[in-house]
């Protein structure tokens, strides 16, 4: 199908975009368009105005500081996948990006677009959740920081006011004692994951787990962390028994059946993938943590 008519605006600065967004009312932001345009074509959405932010140069950047890799919201997924900075300082993101759509959609799809679309099976929000990333949003009244744990307000709904724009994502730099893994299962390459898992482990000098993060996607309306299982791993040795026990926590999660898969199937898959991801993360943590 073809989209319903809309008016098109192409601001060249972030301040111009925020003013437009505040003034226009029924408007949507167009970044890479790889999720929004299908929804327009299928007429799930029919905004009066589209504000194309793809030519706002200040929104596309990658900058490294001592704490974090700062990424502009308009940065294309393909540029991140090819980025030595991402590979070295945020290897979990590099590992996840190969699963984001296809090469032909990553060329235009953006990191910020994926975070705002917030599909429950999407890879980029899952990485941000596992890494405790922080997001900067800008509105007519200035900017604020939102921790990723507070970003999902519901099914495909970010914690973003109608007059606000996501401007940047701050991914904490990988630590020397850290290991990560991103694993997902889909029927075909590039399809939405049935279940996806992002895991991060830090292993202390005694070989014991100092901190753990386990994030699951595709299991219900929003991605989530397995907080209890993460706490249970602290102080443990990263051995298969401990890891299997942590993965068992997926069985307790509440996932209902949908048109494609039963909740029981997703829980089983989640348990298997969490175990594999933790084992891989543990192996990489002991190996220095700098692998993709």
């Amino acid at each position: 199908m073809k989209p319903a008519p809309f008016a098109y605006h192409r601001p060249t600065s972030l301040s111009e975009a925020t003013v437009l967004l505040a003034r226009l009312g029924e408007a949507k932001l167009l970044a890479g368009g790889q999720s929004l345009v299908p929804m327009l074509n299928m007429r799930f959405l029919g905004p009066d105005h589209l504000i194309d932010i793809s030519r706002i140069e200040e929104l596309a950047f990658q900058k490294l500081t001592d704490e974090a890799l700062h990424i502009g919201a308009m940065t294309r997924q393909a540029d991140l996948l090819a980025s030595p900075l991402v590979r070295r300082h945020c290897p979990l993101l590099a590992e996840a990006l190969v699963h984001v759509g296809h090469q032909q959609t990553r060329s235009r799809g953006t990191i910020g677009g994926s975070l705002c679309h917030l599909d429950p099976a999407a890879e980029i929000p899952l990485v941000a959740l596992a890494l405790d990333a922080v997001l900067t949003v800008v509105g007519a009244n200035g900017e604020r920081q939102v921790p990723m744990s507070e970003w999902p307000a519901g099914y495909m709904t970010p914690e973003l006011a109608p007059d606000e724009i996501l401007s940047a994502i701050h991914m904490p730099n990988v630590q020397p004692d850290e290991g990560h893994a991103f694993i997902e299962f889909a029927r075909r390459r590039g399809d939405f994951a049935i279940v996806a898992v992002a895991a991060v482990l830090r292993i202390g000098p005694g070989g014991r787990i100092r901190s753990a993060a386990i994030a699951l996607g595709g299991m219900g309306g929003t991605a989530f962390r397995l907080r209890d299982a993460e706490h249970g791993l602290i102080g443990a040795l990263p051995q298969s028994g401990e890891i299997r026990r942590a993965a068992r926590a997926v069985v307790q999660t509440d996932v209902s059946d949908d048109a494609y898969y039963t909740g029981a199937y997703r829980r089983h898959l989640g348990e298997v993938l969490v175990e594999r991801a933790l084992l891989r993360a543990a192996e990489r943590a002991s190996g220095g943590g700098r692998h993709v």
Partner: protein
Amino acid sequence: MSEPHAIVLSVNGRAVDAKVEPRRLLADFLRRDLNLTGTHIGCEHGVCGACTVLVDGRPARSCLMFAVQADGCEVVTVEGLAGEDGRLSPLQQAFREHHALQCGFCTPGVLISLTSLLGASPDPDEAVIRDVVSGHICRCTGYQAMIDAARAVAGRGVPGRS
């Protein structure tokens, strides 16, 4: 409210001036306004890959872009792959030799994606070729012959575009 916008772009090396309604998809602009019907439209939501074209050198779904967004861009469609004299590009020739098309519906998109791959890395291994082809749906299930054709061109040191 949805007044036409004036756009200027390059399509297959030719300068194009046009006025487009904002909702005009790039795929429809190419097919209907420029009569470049080599670009095919399959699913219209970015999954099938039939409408893939090059935008500023990168493969993109032309059903997920509005023509107005291509303002100032360089677009290459399947019509731009062969030489001026109609001579097939090495990749197109290899498709012919390896019987890499059956009904031909997905072919324009696949040619664009593989041309872009071979331009960026002249000798990709089979895993990379398969990854690129995975962004296209061929209902004749002719993937293996496409991969064979790309492999035949890879490593010859010739770009996919003549």
